[in-house]
């Protein structure tokens, strides 16, 4: 038997099985007259293990046999396949972010003045950590409050070239028409594609939510 055929069958079988496969079972995959002996199978397994060096997978022997598993150093990104997107950002965070974008450079106090409520420090920390906002200086008033401004990452995230691409306040007045003028949906985001499907439906997640959000924070 061709060595690479033996190796190919073993690799395919280990990957198809979805469970560990014992060496004896691997031998059984072949017709009797062409059945490799245990030594040949072990040699093929050794080659496979070597092939996987520097790759995202490893060959491992466990109690019930051999299996191919994800290498630990890529487990972290791969784990995201199973992660649920967390809840959305609060209305308060979005308002804070919007004010920083439109009125930058701006201090927390100024945001509070406009919003009429105190800004939760966690909100500012979140947008700073996200890399959307940064402190660009301090206003020269008592307490020297931090001046907040948006970053290039902020523009990138929202697909804007400059802040000028944000709609003007006058345009904002007619939010309904915004959907037409702006490409709101970022490509490749399934959640958003879904959302656009229901645009005709009463936008209860938008208008009443706005009122609720305003009252709720």
């Amino acid at each position, binding site marked *: 038997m061709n060595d690479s055929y033996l190796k190919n069958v073993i690799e395919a079988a280990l990957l198809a099985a979805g469970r560990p496969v014992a060496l004896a079972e691997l031998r059984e995959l072949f017709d009797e007259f062409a059945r490799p002996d245990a030594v040949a199978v072990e040699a093929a397994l050794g080659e496979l293990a070597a092939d996987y060096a520097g790759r995202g997978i490893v060959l491992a022997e466990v109690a019930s046999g051999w299996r191919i598993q994800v290498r630990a150093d890529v487990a972290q990104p791969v784990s995201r396949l199973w992660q649920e997107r967390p809840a959305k*950002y609060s209305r308060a965070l979005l*308002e804070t972010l919007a004010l920083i*974008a439109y009125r930058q450079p701006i201090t927390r106090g100024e945001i509070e003045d*406009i919003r009429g409520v105190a800004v939760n420090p966690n909100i500012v920390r979140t947008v700073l950590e996200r890399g959307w906002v940064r402190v660009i200086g301090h*206003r020269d008033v008592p307490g020297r409050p931090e001046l907040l401004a948006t970053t290039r990452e902020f523009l990138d995230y929202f*697909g804007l070239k400059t802040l000028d691409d944000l709609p*003007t306040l006058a345009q904002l007045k007619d939010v309904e028409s915004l959907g037409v003028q702006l490409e709101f949906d970022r490509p490749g985001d399934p959640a958003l594609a879904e959302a656009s499907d229901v645009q005709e439906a009463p936008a209860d997640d938008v208008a009443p939510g706005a009122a609720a959000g305003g009252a709720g924070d």
Partner: protein
Amino acid sequence: MNSPLTPAEPRPEQAEMPFAIVDGEPVTEPPRDLYIPPQALKVFLEAFEGPLDLLLYLIRRQNLDVLDIPIAEITRQYLNYIDLMRELELELAGEYLLMAAMLAEIKSRMLLPRAQSEQAEEDDPRAELVRRLQEYERFKRAAEDIDHLPRLERDVWVAQAELIERAVAPLLPDVTLKEMLLAFQDVISRAAMFAHHHVQRERLSVRQRMSEIIERLQGGELLGFAQLFRVEEGRMGVTVTFVALLELLREGLLDIVQADTYAPLHVRAATPRSDQPAANDDAAGAASDDILESR
């Protein structure tokens, strides 16, 4: 021909000698190509997916074009099969009897003299049957084609590897521009209730430039006034920078310093000021208000 057509009585066979009478009905001999033992015949007949399938089988067996069915012959064979099904006490679906009636009816129509020759083509009683047979055959073949596609669990297996430890890497929420804009609209409309907050319709590039200038002045260094302007940005860019400077001055975020009369102007981040030159502030404010179309 004046008795109502009943599918159980294949009329063409009346001339033949029935070789058996089953339940009082004459049964002619089984189709000649059926060299199948009676036990297997049941399986064979059950294999048909309905009358269209059986008809197609009869047509194909004789290597005939569907478009050119010898209706009398096919009808005879079809009725033979139906009789066989009855004889073997197969559950005979109503569709088979309906088809038998349709065939008999087509046949009887074909016996009629062709009165209106110009309508003959449209009126060919076989046309509808042929259309249905063709349509059915297309999907019969499509079903075979689909069956031949390599499919999971039979021909194809998805490769999978074990992920032992699922690391926890929090995903961050997504935000759409629209969400943020709606939030902004909301906060602005609420703020409008507070008299002194007038948010003008302004060029955001001025805001962006303000941020940039402040950042450049971090660390308290002194920048030449001219250094802040980039000629390659053109008149618009220069205007934006100038307005940004005025706005920063008005907000008290930077100082403009001049060592001597006619000496070059420099800017720096604002230092704590004791006495504020009111005139300067007013002028800057007025200028920026004009350009920012504040109201």
